[in-house]
């Protein structure tokens, strides 16, 4: 079950989107600029290029949205989140995924994941996630929330 991370409200200006699809950061930029004119979205295809890119050698981010991590909770996921936080100045982490894993919800606080948003969610849900993260609260999107609380752990994917 997700628990509050007690983070302070923060302005999420510098955002890195890690996803195979180059259209995704474009869409996120559009959404976030509607809320925060200072939002700047950078893009990397995958976690390896994000961690190794010279362009990001000394970069820090306020929020990293990653759609190309593993679908299920695993040590690799934990490690990826840890490395992203370590390299980029402890950003908030949003996992943007089309696969459901209740363990991710249960271990959000321990793993350092701040938001878990389904890829099929509406634009409004993404707005909500951004606003909620800016206020320092964790966020689980409606689809994952319904699967977790209404269908329980029986539905793993």
């Amino acid at each position, binding site marked *: 079950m997700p628990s509050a991370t007690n983070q302070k409200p923060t302005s999420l200006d510098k955002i890195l989107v890690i996803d195979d*699809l*180059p*259209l*995704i950061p474009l869409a996120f930029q559009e959404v976030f600029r509607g809320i925060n004119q200072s939002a700047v979205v950078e893009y990397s*295809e995958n976690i390896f290029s994000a961690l190794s890119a010279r362009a990001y050698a000394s970069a820090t981010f306020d929020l990293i949205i990653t759609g190309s991590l593993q679908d299920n909770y695993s040590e690799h996921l934990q490690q990826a989140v840890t490395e992203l936080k370590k390299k980029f100045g402890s950003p908030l982490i949003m996992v943007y995924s*089309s696969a459901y894993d209740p363990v991710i919800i249960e271990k959000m606080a321990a793993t350092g994941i701040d938001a878990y948003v389904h890829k*099929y*969610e509406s*634009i409004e849900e993404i707005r909500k996630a951004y606003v909620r993260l800016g206020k320092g609260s964790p966020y689980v999107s409606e689809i994952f929330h319904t699967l977790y609380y209404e269908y329980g752990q029986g539905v793993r994917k």
Partner: protein
Amino acid sequence: MPSPLINNILVLDDMPTIALGLQGIFCSFNETVHIEHIENIFTALSSKSLDEKKFDLAVIGEQLGSPSDDLLRTVAELQHRFGPMKIMVYSPNYDHSLLEKMETSGIDAYVHKYEAVAEIRKAFSCLLAGEPYISPIYRTLYYEYGLMMRK
């Protein structure tokens, strides 16, 4: 021969962010572009809210499985319901037979989902100019790897 402006676009994709991203690109060509996002082909074909609507372009991003027959049927059904319009297939799945059937099936652009934003812009430019478009990833797979990559 240049085509008329593309104003009304139907985007079929599970992810609303895809429609929003495409809107950002298409609006840079034509600010009056209107995008209608629908999650899947079944909703597109049955939705009452789309009655009487006409589209200039449909972008099919929904994954319909590998047999191109499914996709070709989808194209035919969309044309049947909404009238003639341009078709852009925006897919992460390579299907060589689709490339071979583009002209006869009414597909105007075949764009890989991992293509850069600049390539999607190119695709839209070609659609506006009335020219067919195949993205470099698919072109490479088809012309350079040929039979080896065929599924």
